[in-house]
């Protein structure tokens, strides 16, 4: 499946719009990570535990969105957007949404003529 955050896909034509698809997740890390993060907060630097958390949750929400798109029979998702909100300490809500579409590759020779 082609996933892009632009409105069009180069070399492809959108045949049919299947509608908005979305995926979200709220995740937290275990308490050990939280303690490590609070120690790191004294001197600064990257919180690798939380970076991992964000990456994992983002993949999860993206996967849920793609599953929904697949169910609708789409073969691409365009104009994907991510949104983040913080619900409570140490947890993150990740939300992603896009438009599921059916696309077809354009014959490039025809594209130049038309």
């Amino acid at each position, binding site marked *: 499946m*082609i*996933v*892009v*955050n*632009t*409105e*069009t*896909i*180069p*070399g492809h034509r959108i045949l049919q719009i299947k509608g908005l698809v979305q995926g979200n997740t709220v995740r937290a890390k275990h308490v050990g990570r*939280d303690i490590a*993060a*609070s120690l*790191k*907060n*004294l*001197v*600064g*630097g*990257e*919180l*690798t535990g*939380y*970076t991992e*958390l*964000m*990456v994992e949750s*983002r993949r999860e929400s993206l996967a849920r969105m793609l599953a929904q798109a697949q169910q609708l029979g789409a073969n691409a998702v365009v104009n*994907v*957007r*991510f*949104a*983040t*909100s*913080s*619900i*409570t*300490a*140490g*947890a*993150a809500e990740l939300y992603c949404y896009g438009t599921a579409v059916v696309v077809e590759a354009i014959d*490039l020779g025809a*594209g130049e003529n038309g």
Partner: protein
Amino acid sequence: MIFFQLFIQLIIPLSLVGVCFLIGKGIELHHFKKLTQREQQLSGIIVTNLKTIPLEYANAQPILVMGSAVIATDYFKVFAAGLRTLFGGEMKSYVTLMERARREAMVRLLEQAAGQGASAVWNIRYETSTTHGQHRKKPGGVEVQAYGTALR
């Protein structure tokens, strides 16, 4: 007794601020140095936030790429920002914090794009959030995510 109380209430926090300032500053300078190096290595990739992909990339294969980083505040930054709220003005300690997070996220995005063999990244967006929610006292940092469409 008064001296003891003064010691507990004033000197320990202040020396902690001092120590954390030195370590934090060191980590920050090292981070900036590393970022500059990595940015130079990746400078060959075209980066833009334009929406439409020009015709020259009509054959390119698009891939969604993203990079994110969570950077922690340090004890000194929180202290300095607390003082700033009394007098107003620019919170320089937080400006550099945001800059680090944003550049780190961008570099990670570019590294992913370079790993896929992409020559350009179109329609780049940034997203920002915090990992400590509304609890300002709880540990946490700023999270920046960058995402875009890489063209191979």
